[in-house]
């Protein structure tokens, strides 16, 4: 009788521990968070040559298997080229956003020198960012119209 009771208690203990482990593990799974798969946000284009856009995640472009894709933006500054013009030269900030899709097609635009605020936006781009850019063309120049940067936890992470 005593022995029987002891076994029952042990079994209960085991079942309880198992149930606890199950709950704990299912809880851990539920807490894993939302993730976008590495190649879900490859480079894509929209619109036409006059107005359009391009977007994609840096991580997805890098993880793509085609060997072509890339997407990103660059910021630059140029100042006087010699001491003779330091007093008159106007330093300029500028930028470009550029993308190439899986077929080797490219889309790009220029970030106007007026867009000093845009430089702040460009500086938020990191290795795991998703970026989207729209553009329009006028007078032989392709201007970036909008640049947005998403830095979310679910973004595809850039791997080596």
């Amino acid at each position, binding site marked *: 009788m005593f022995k029987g009771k002891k076994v029952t208690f042990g079994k209960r203990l085991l079942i309880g521990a198992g149930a606890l482990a199950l709950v704990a593990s299912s809880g851990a799974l539920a807490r894993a968070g939302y993730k976008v798969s590495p190649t879900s946000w490859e480079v894509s284009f929209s619109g036409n040559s006059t107005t359009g856009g391009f977007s994609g995640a840096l991580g997805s472009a890098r993880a793509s298997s085609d060997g072509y894709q890339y997407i990103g933006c660059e910021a630059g500054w140029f100042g006087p080229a010699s001491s003779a013009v330091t007093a008159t030269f106007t330093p300029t900030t500028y930028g470009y956003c550029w993308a190439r899709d899986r077929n*080797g097609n*490219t889309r*790009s635009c220029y970030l106007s020198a007026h867009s000093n605020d845009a430089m702040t936006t460009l500086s938020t781009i990191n290795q795991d960012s998703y970026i989207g850019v729209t553009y329009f063309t006028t007078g032989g120049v392709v201007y970036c119209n909008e640049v947005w940067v998403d830095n979310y936890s679910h973004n595809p992470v850039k791997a080596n």
Partner: protein
Amino acid sequence: MSRRLPSLVTGMVLGAGLLYGAGHLSGRARSDQATERASVDDEPARAEPSPLLAAAAVRVAAAAPSADFAAVSARLERIEQRLDGVAAGADARRAAAARAEEALITGATPEDRDEHQQGAFDRASAIVDRALAAGVWTDGEQGAMREAAAEMLPADRFTLKMKLSLAGNEGKLRDTAAAPMFF
């Protein structure tokens, strides 16, 4: 049940005591804050209980609004001047950016280039024209362009970059180079 009753009563009494204590402290804090505010607000008026000095205080208090008004007015004027300065600075920066962009978009002329810059621009232009004619951008062009770009004026780089950008956006140029089209 009868054994639980005393502990229930004790709990209720303790709870009520805690609530009262918290309310008292909170009320006191509010009262202190109000006193502080009042002491700040009322300082000139409560300065003197004596009738003579009270009259003086009234005179000062009567004069105070105009004095305050003058001070506030002067302060506003200074703020306005500063804002004007900031606006003028912003206007100047915008104008400078517009001039710089115009120079970039208009492009450089042969007079703007020295011998090396002219040579680099000629070489780079030939590379770009050849690529546009073929409809393809290759590793060879990318490498040659990088070399030439190092000696080119920013406005010349911009001109050629825009040619490639337009052709790419129009779907007339396929980029097969391993390295991105940056130069």
